[in-house]
């Protein structure tokens, strides 16, 4: 990694730990990016604002949800045109009723990403303007990207087709 990027990383870490003495849990190195920030979901909205307004990460590229069985991870990837690099923001949520504040107020592009994460990984985004099914049919009661959801060969399933 370049020296300037490492410098920026150290700078970011210092500023964030000063700004969020409790919620900011650390900045891990992550190859090819400025690193991965671990944060407490309680400070989500303030952190997003800080990251966007102060540190100029104005483009939210991806929101991913990962099911680690005993916990759920929600991962935001943001990009800065100023620093020319990605930054990952990761929060660990409990497996029971995982929820986090929505990022749509900060990055409007989070809208569909969060809808998708909500229906596939079952992470609720509080105060989301339009939390309904995006990819799956309305009213689908499973969350396919959870580890507990198993795939089957079609022969193992009974297919009942009802003409409507």
């Amino acid at each position, binding site marked *: 990694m370049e020296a300037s990027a490492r410098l920026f990383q150290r700078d970011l870490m210092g500023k964030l730990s000063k700004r969020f003495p409790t919620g900011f849990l650390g900045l891990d190195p992550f190859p090819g990016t400025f690193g991965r920030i671990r944060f407490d979901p309680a400070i989500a909205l303030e952190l997003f604002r800080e990251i966007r307004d102060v540190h100029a990460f104005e483009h939210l590229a991806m929101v991913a949800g990962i099911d680690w069985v005993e916990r759920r991870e929600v991962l935001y990837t943001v990009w800065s045109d100023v620093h020319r690099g990605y930054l990952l923001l990761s929060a660990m949520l409990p497996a029971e009723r995982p929820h986090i504040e929505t990022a749509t107020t900060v990055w409007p592009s989070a809208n569909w990403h969060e809808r998708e994460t909500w229906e596939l990984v079952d992470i609720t985004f509080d105060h989301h303007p339009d939390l309904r099914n995006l990819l799956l049919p309305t009213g689908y009661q499973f969350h396919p990207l959870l580890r507990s959801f198993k*795939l089957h060969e079609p022969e193992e399933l009974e*297919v009942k087709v009802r003409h409507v």
Partner: protein
Amino acid sequence: MTGTSTTVVPKPRPPIEAAAPAGELPMVTQPALPFFEIETLRAEQFIPNAKEALGSMIAEQAQDKLIRPVFNWAGRNSLFPLHWGLACCAIEFAAAFGARWDAERFGVVPRSSPRQCDLLIVNGTVTWKVAHKLITLYEQMPEPKWVIAMGNCATGGGPFRTAYSVVPGVDKLVPVDVYIAGCPPRPEALLDGILLLERLIQERRE
């Protein structure tokens, strides 16, 4: 003329050999009369409009020999598929209408409205979310209509058959006439499938 009209339908002729008892040569060497002729003879005695019944049989023959070939020829040579792209195969479907393969040579012209189509080419993965819309489209097409399952996904789910959202084969939803293998099938394969369907239509009796 009577108020009601009954039509006599010829029954299939029973096998003559089966009439003879087993292990014994039949005494009569002359072939028996075809069953429907006997029916007609009897009918002439008992049914007043047997002549019309015979006429309807002739009309049926004429329809068989004259009209149906023309209709089948027309149906075979003018298949309008629905302009609907589902997934990967849709791109090859479009390529088949491109300059190199030019499916219009065979009179295959895609139309956007299902009402004007007689061929539904299911060119891609069918998910449960789109399943009832596919059935609606199929039902909107006027008879006679045909379905081609293009590619492995439409045939049996393909690489996504284990997925929770994919219909493992479109024949669970609509009757399929021709299956085309490939993932995706090349445009030649699609044309081959269409020609196969044309052969099926040519031999159609209904």
